[in-house]
């Protein structure tokens, strides 16, 4: 039944899209505040997942502990990236910070492979039972959790940005850093806090991804950076609700093109769409803040 396929693919696309949306939100927070692409965002998430894997292998700790380790390690790695790549280049050319973040990417990958040298490690499953069935449709409990986490992060993030003093300051820095400084807002302090926040969201996402895939590889770093950047760009560069829509759209595009055109077209279609968007630059795409 074609209709059932479309529905099941949409469901699968949305659950994959939920993780892309989370990565996109983290990316957008950093890009918005710093106007710099942080290529090391994914690798910091990967390092967090590796730290959790290491703890799991050595202590057999439970999921809650692993979750906390992943978040904490990602926040630490993220803050390291901020201090090293972004704090010194706040006024300099954007390319300098981006290249620096690429160097740190390599460093973080090396660190991960020193910690755990094999290419692939198992990670404890988020949920041991089987998938949920609704009539002809099935949904993994892990996917449901991912969707719920994405919704929760968006809701809490929305509240934090639109209903708190900190949120007003963050949006002021995103709108106009110089005017924010002149209004008494310390751009440096806000940037570091946003970086830590985005890293915490990244740590949560990384944990959910490896716990639902039940494995971790160093590729998680590049994967997270690419998916997060794609979600951010599809969502119009610099808009948080846009990043959520962009992430979900990316998941849907991937799921449908994989089903109708074959797995080899999955990434091709997504990147082609990004290329077309960047070439056409529709009006909702915010090119003001990019360089």
């Amino acid at each position, binding site marked *: 039944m074609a209709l059932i396929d479309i529905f099941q693919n949409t469901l699968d696309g949305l659950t994959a899209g939920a993780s892309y949306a989370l990565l996109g939100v983290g990316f957008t927070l950093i890009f918005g505040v710093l106007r710099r692409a942080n290529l090391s965002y994914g690798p910091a998430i990967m390092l967090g997942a590796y730290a959790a894997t290491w703890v799991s292998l050595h202590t057999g700790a439970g999921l809650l502990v692993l979750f906390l380790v992943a978040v904490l390690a990602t926040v630490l790695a993220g803050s390291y990236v901020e201090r090293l790549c972004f704090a010194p280049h706040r006024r300099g050319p954007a390319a300098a910070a981006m290249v620096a973040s690429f160097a740190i990417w390599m460093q973080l990958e090396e660190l991960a492979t020193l910690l755990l040298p094999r290419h692939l490690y198992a990670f404890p499953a988020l949920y041991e039972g089987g998938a949920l069935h609704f009539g002809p449709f099935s949904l993994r409990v892990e996917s449901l959790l991912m969707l719920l986490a994405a919704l929760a992060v968006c809701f809490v993030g929305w509240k934090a940005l639109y209903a708190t003093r900190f949120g007003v300051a963050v*949006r*002021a820095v995103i709108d*106009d850093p110089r005017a*924010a400084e002149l*209004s008494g807002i310390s751009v440096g302090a806000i940037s570091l806090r946003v970086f830590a926040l985005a890293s915490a969201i990244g740590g949560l996402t990384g944990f959910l991804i490896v716990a639902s895939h039940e494995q971790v590889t160093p590729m998680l770093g590049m994967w997270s950076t690419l998916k997060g950047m794609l979600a951010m760009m599809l969502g119009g560069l610099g808009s948080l609700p846009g990043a959520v829509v962009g992430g979900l759209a990316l998941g849907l595009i991937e799921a449908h093109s994989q089903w109708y055109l074959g797995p080899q077209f999955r990434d091709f279609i997504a990147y082609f769409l990004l290329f077309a968007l960047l070439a056409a630059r529709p009006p909702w795409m915010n090119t003001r803040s990019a360089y």
Partner: protein
Amino acid sequence: MLRVQELVTAYGKIEALKGVSLEVAQGTITCLLGPNGAGKTTLMMTIAGVLKPKLGTVSFLGEKLSGLAPHAIVARGIALVPENRLVFPSMTVLENLRAGAFQRKDDFDADIERLLGRFPRLKERSAQLAGTLSGGEQQMLAVARALMSRPKLLLMDEPSLGLAPLVVEEIFAIIAELHRDGTTIFLVEQNAHMALKVAHRFFLMEQGRVSFSGDPGSLAEDEVIRRAYLGSSRN
């Protein structure tokens, strides 16, 4: 209140301020006039901490300011209404005002109400995004945002720039009103005629230096205007 001494600020090798000294007395409206490129905006940006001086000092109420970050200077009681207003375009009028009060720990809702009472057009548009306001409304918002930090000294960089004559009148009426309420104001203006009407004291700047200072009556207005627009050396 504000004392600037031998201030030199450079963009790379080009010195935009070549040793500027001036003083702003408490309770006055002091005006800075001069042709384009004289260094007026550079001076404002240096006082506010956005630019770092190469030499010289800025002190405020006896405390040295030069070297501090802009947010630290706001904390000491100086707020700058920057050239071209620089409101936060994707935030509402109300959020712009809250951003201006970022450092305050006390309850500032009463101040927001008071400012919206003073700027009725902002009150009507309080839920509107600042980017959708007219130039005059954005200027009023920029002034109100700066006032939310409750500055002892308000710096204003060309508040009349690009505004219609009626709106300029309105802005100057607001400046006079703020002064009556006890705010000290240091104002950069191209509109010498309007500026001399409200100012207690003025400075002329030309090519990075202060070339004249005095009361509004101490130099004929047409001479001030000639020098403010053209500079004395070029006639």
